[in-house]
């Protein structure tokens, strides 16, 4: 909805806050950006969304970023390791796993245990990526042995396979199920508390606009920011 505004404001001599953020934050952060701009008319919030792992090397190699919001502690760590973050990153959102099944739930899944059925087609993330790491933790906590048919590189891959009915179930984040608009059904499971993924945010050391960065980070952690994030399905600490 706010898409035209940054372009319009670019004409004025406003101060630009550049936020590098994980792609899964796009909708929430764009909403937050609009509100920040409303609060601070002198600011223009610009986003560069992408995979966290693509954004980290950009920041390390001197991208003109003011804020980095990462979808995993590991990618944030890459930035911290190169002393590119200003101060300690803070946790601002969590994402919780759900079992996603096609709306008609052909395999009648309603718990983690059901995933152990060898005939069931299951998709989940690979252990190397955050959602896979979370899935491993959840399955370990539930002591379920499952054999997935595919170990995806990101959670959207899992989701699209569920949507298209290629698999009977997949382990995805709650935000993804919510964004899928009813094309998949989400099933909560008790061990999901063990299967969370942490989102971290930090201002950048060489930020061209450190004040703006602070304002943005602060807004994300404010009540209004938390509301927007939790509406999108995130857990907010």
């Amino acid at each position: 909805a706010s898409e035209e505004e940054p372009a319009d404001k670019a004409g004025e001599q406003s101060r630009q806050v550049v936020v590098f953020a994980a792609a899964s934050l796009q909708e929430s952060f764009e909403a937050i950006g609009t509100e920040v701009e409303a609060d601070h008319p002198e600011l223009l919030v610009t986003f560069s969304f992408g995979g966290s792992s693509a954004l980290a090397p950009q920041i390390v190699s001197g991208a003109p970023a003011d804020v980095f919001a990462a979808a995993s502690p590991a990618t944030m760590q890459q930035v911290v390791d190169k002393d590119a973050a200003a101060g300690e990153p803070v946790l601002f959102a969590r994402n919780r796993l759900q079992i996603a099944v096609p709306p008609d739930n052909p395999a009648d899944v309603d718990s983690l245990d059901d995933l152990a059925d060898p005939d069931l087609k299951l998709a989940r993330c690979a252990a190397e990526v955050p959602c896979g790491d979370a899935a491993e933790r959840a399955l370990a906590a539930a002591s379920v042995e499952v054999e997935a048919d595919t170990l995806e590189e990101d959670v959207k891959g899992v989701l699209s396979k569920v949507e298209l009915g290629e698999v009977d179930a997949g382990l995805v984040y709650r935000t993804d199920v919510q964004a899928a608009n009813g094309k998949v059904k989400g099933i909560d499971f008790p061990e999901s508390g063990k299967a969370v993924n942490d989102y971290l945010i930090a201002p950048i050391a060489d930020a061209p606009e450190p004040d703006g960065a602070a304002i943005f980070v602060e807004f994300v952690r404010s009540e209004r920011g938390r509301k927007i994030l939790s509406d999108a399905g995130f857990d907010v600490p």
Partner: protein
Amino acid sequence: MPASTSPDHRLVAARARPPLPLLVPGLLALGFLVLPLLGLALRAPWRRLPDLLTSAQVLDALRLSLMCALLATLLSLLLGVPLAWLLARTDFPGRRIVRALVTVPLVLPPVVGGVALLMLLGRRGVVGQYLDAWFGLSLPFTTAAVVLAEAFVAMPFLVIAVEGALQATDSRYETAAATLGASRWMVFWRVTLPMAAPGVVAGSVLCFARALGEFGATITFAGSFPGVTRTMPIEVYLRLQSDPDTAIVLSLLLLAVSVLVLAMLRDRWTRSGLT
């Protein structure tokens, strides 16, 4: 009576039905390439198209994509055709290695390619730091960076296709041109290039299409700022995260536009030749 390349002057062998061993696999290939798109097109939620087509963000991305892909193709033509010529027509030590090296960016995962570009041209890159220090020039996260990233990924396609075409053209016409006093440059420009034109066109099509579809290297080297570096594929990628259906409509839109552009360019090229 030397070769004629313009179709209307060609001897035409009677065109009966093409032989089955060519027709069947050819049609299979066509089906294989086109049917998935058809499926996609049929299932795509086209009613969202009007919204998308009036969204400034989409239009920005589309405009940016076309412009950058065209510039990248132009850059690739300017640099890549000479490189192809060097590979095809000169003999220097290590030519085989160079030819293999040119192929290499094809295999590199684009994101890694983007990282490599950052390492070279980034603000702290091997070359980039001097650009920054001496000229205050910073390439990454600008539209120029998009063009560079696309050219890096797409140029090898052009080079290899053009080299293949050059290898296949009869170099005796070039020697004839040389006896007429044409410098090597003139031979290249007035004889080699026009005779290899179909290959150059094919290479440019590949290059343009690859550049238009480029995503990994672009987002890594240039970022994804709306209106500046966010091309259609990045837009599609981001939509895939939130709204896959829209993403598909957008891809198909990209397709349609690219087909249109290619048809237009091809026509012009084929009509006027390259001279």
